């Protein structure tokens, strides 16, 4: 299985990044061959839509799973559409989180926790529904 980990630097000893779309680097680990490839994130400098661009790039690498601290709603939508499984990891090195995934210790993120068409009914549509939410997700939405 090929797994892409959003990371702060290249290599299997780098820390997993808390963000996806604008992470410094993706480390792709092939669990069968143990091959490790570090890829620069092409969307790092994107002014908008970084999550979409980086997710598309990761899909093109033919990975089956992604591990990241957080994944924004747009990137999640792309990864879901492509059938890539997404797992959350709050800390650790690339090697550690890949091992944790193989041991079944990582939580799968099944859908974006930030709905996109929320509150479109009118100017105040859906007030109150968003309270107590919103931590950490959906960063880097550049407009």
């Amino acid at each position: 299985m090929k797994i892409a980990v959003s990371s702060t630097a290249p290599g299997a000893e780098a820390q997993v990044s808390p963000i996806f779309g604008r992470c410094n680097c993706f480390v792709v680990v092939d669990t069968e061959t143990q091959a490790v490839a570090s890829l620069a994130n092409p969307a790092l400098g994107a002014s908008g839509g970084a999550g979409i661009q980086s997710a598309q790039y990761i899909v093109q690498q033919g990975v089956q799973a992604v591990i990241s601290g957080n994944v924004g709603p747009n990137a999640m939508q792309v990864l879901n559409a492509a059938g890539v499984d997404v797992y959350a990891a709050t800390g650790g090195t690339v090697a550690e989180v890949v091992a944790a995934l193989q041991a079944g210790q990582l939580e799968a993120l099944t859908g974006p926790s930030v709905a996109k068409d929320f509150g479109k009914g009118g100017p105040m549509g859906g007030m109150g529904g968003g309270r107590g939410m919103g931590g950490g997700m959906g960063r880097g939405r550049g407009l």
Partner: protein
Amino acid sequence: MRLVIASGKGGTGKTLVATSLALVAAERATGSDALPALLDADVEAPNVALFVRAEVSETVAVERLVPVVNAALCTHCGRCAEVCQFNAIAALPTQTLVFAELCHGCGSCALQCPAGAITEEPQPMGRVTLGQAAGLRLGEGELQVGEAMATPVIRALKHEAQRRGWDGEALTIIDAPPGTACPVIEALRGADAALLVTEPTPFGLHDLRMAVEVARDVLGLPVGVAINRDDGGDGSVAAYCAQEGLPVLLRLPLEREIAAAYSDGQPLVTALPRYRPTFEAALDALLALAEEAQP
């Protein structure tokens, strides 16, 4: 003649100045004169209608075009995602996803798709409301909540007013959005003069400088300044204006009565008629400034 009321800093009193100038102009327009128009181009926070009650005659939807991919025709070549400069399209091996909120509506994806699989469909992003109040034509642009781009709504507002011949011989006063970015440029574009409203504070001065850079230096417009909430305590704005040769065309004092009238949605010249001559003089001075610059 088109006059734009703008400012770098928000909340300096653009709407207060624009509504009173327009009401003064409306009183003056007599008989054969075409009615003056007041356009609210602060489409993110349009407030003119709270001060001047208009009878709405027409509402025009403002739409933007977003791409729709016909899955039956798509060959998943990825060209659309490649040409999109805004990362609004993700081309996956078996699917093409469009993120409408990132789309700038440029149409490049539809033009470049080799399979002809992309069409564009209108999506609402705001509206333009047109109407009339006593002796005044009123237009308002309103950006829908959750939409990001104000500029197309401002463009539509100006276009709708122009299409109805509001511009012609008559006076048009535009209440611009705050700031110095693209929506302000759109509001100022095509103006004959700009009145920049500020307050005599360090924030006011800093943001006035930025607004002058946009209106005078980038767009080459004749520029006058209005100093609002003048408490006589900070001469740096007046000193800057003198140094830059910018005429101060209007001064309003820091007065509780003015703030109270404003807070209840009363135009200043209606609530406190003693300010009418002040606005008449400011309007004359602004018109003279605009006329002086005419070729």
